């Protein structure tokens, strides 16, 4: 592939021995020599650094941006305070999820991060619907995540202001004399930061983080097992254009006023499902045995009827066994319910469990 893209950290990945793969058109490290399992544990126990520069960073400038975003998203962005970030999603007219995103109120603008594979959809979507808002996709900044219980030490050593942030707060601060946007959030279930860095300083600052004895690089492999154990959805696996936020058990991400007032694409369906329950819902599923249940595996009730499908499944290094998420139809999905997973034609016993699989360690 000649048009595969590289992030500003590409040469660092090569230097660190990263195994590079094509991910959503980007040449990204799936793992480093430490390996997926080791990198996963590194993040849970100390701190890990991830390159997430493939994600789309977008700046929105204009009058009442938060209010205008509410026409595209079911979140209460009009009331999002300066210095705060909020998880959300674009919904389509049928109440399906077009993409999930993080929106931050940066004071004189809004800062939005969207999935790599959907940059081409989301940017035109915002340009078409956010009237009077200047939508600027940022290409000249890297995005680096430092995640784990030691993340505050790793980042705080170079940037004391980072220590003062709480979960889902964002600020601008200098790191090694370079102005960076630092947000206390992530995709691992651990405390940590995502840091937007000018591209020409990205390697220098990443290396400064990695110089800390508790910080090691981690790739997309560990990122996936970490987010799965943390019960966080992956767009394209667990959520897509057909799944509603209520089906995806993302009702918590829709604020009360928006649930009541509606006024976002697909609000009819979302409000109906809030009132009556959805036809299916996303749940945690823990296989009893050791065989991982991967995406697409059929879920059956004990009577043998199909009740759903696994959407994400892998081995959870912290759990020490296989973990999965999937949809089950209405009437099923209470934690403790026993089900069978059809893996290579054989029924393997499993149990519905509450998400997440591991306790989220956010700094509230």
């Amino acid at each position, binding site marked *: 592939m000649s048009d595969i893209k590289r992030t500003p950290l590409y040469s660092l990945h090569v230097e660190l021995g990263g195994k590079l793969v094509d991910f959503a058109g980007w040449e990204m490290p*799936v*793992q480093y020599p430490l*390996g*997926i*399992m080791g990198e996963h544990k590194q993040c849970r126990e100390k701190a890990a650094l991830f390159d997430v520069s493939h994600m789309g960073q977008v700046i929105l400038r204009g009058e009442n941006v938060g209010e205008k975003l509410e026409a595209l998203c079911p979140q209460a962005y009009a009331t999002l305070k300066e210095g705060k970030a909020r998880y959300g999603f674009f919904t389509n007219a049928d109440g399906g999820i077009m993409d999930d995103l993080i929106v931050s109120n940066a004071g004189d603008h809004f800062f939005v991060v969207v999935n790599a594979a959907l940059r081409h959809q989301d940017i035109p979507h915002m340009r078409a619907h956010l009237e009077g808002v200047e939508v600027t996709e940022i290409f000249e900044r890297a995005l680096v995540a430092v995640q784990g219980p030691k993340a505050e030490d790793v980042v705080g050593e170079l940037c004391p202001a980072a220590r003062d942030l709480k979960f889902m707060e964002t600020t601008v601060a200098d790191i090694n004399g370079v102005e960076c946007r630092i947000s206390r959030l992530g995709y691992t279930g651990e405390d940590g930061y995502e840091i937007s860095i000018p591209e020409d300083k990205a390697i220098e600052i990443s290396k400064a983080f990695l110089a800390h004895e508790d910080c090691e690089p981690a790739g997309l*492999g560990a990122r996936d*097992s970490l987010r799965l154990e943390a019960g966080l959805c992956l767009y394209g696996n667990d959520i897509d254009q057909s799944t509603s936020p209520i089906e995806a058990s993302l009702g918590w991400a829709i604020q009360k006023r928006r649930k009541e007032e509606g006024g976002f694409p697909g609000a009819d369906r979302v409000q109906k499902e809030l009132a009556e329950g959805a036809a299916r819902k996303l749940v945690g599923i823990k296989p009893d045995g*050791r*065989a*991982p249940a*991967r995406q697409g595996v059929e879920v059956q009730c004990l009577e043998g009827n199909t009740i759903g499908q696994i959407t994400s499944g*892998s*081995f959870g*290094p912290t759990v020490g066994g*296989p973990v999965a998420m999937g949809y089950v139809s209405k009437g099923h999905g209470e934690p403790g319910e026993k089900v069978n997973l059809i893996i*290579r034609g054989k029924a393997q016993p499993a149990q519905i469990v509450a998400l997440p699989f591991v306790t989220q360690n956010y700094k509230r």
Partner: protein
Amino acid sequence: MATYYSEEHEWLTVEGDTATLGITKHAAEQLGEVVFVEQQEAGDEFEKDGEIGVIESVKAASELYAPVDGEIVEVNEALADNPGALNEDPEGEAWIYKIKIADASQLEDLMDEAGYKAFIG
């Protein structure tokens, strides 16, 4: 005793009409950390290129294909509790099956060590 290699990255150490079968070090490296091995049972018969097990790593599931016709005579039960052995010692301790070879002439289709080294580059 001679060791043969398949294009599916298995090794086969033959003694008379029986053989020990496993995956190569190269295969183990490509798979990544192994978390589960699905094995068949002693007594199961198989044909060349038939599926005789599945190896699941943190990344994905990979099928194990039979390099020859034969029958499983012994299963390395230790892999059920310690699948990670396949990363540590795939060409030794972490053998997968002992098999009885049905048609020794099929060994001629397999590679020797030098051939396999050239095959993986």
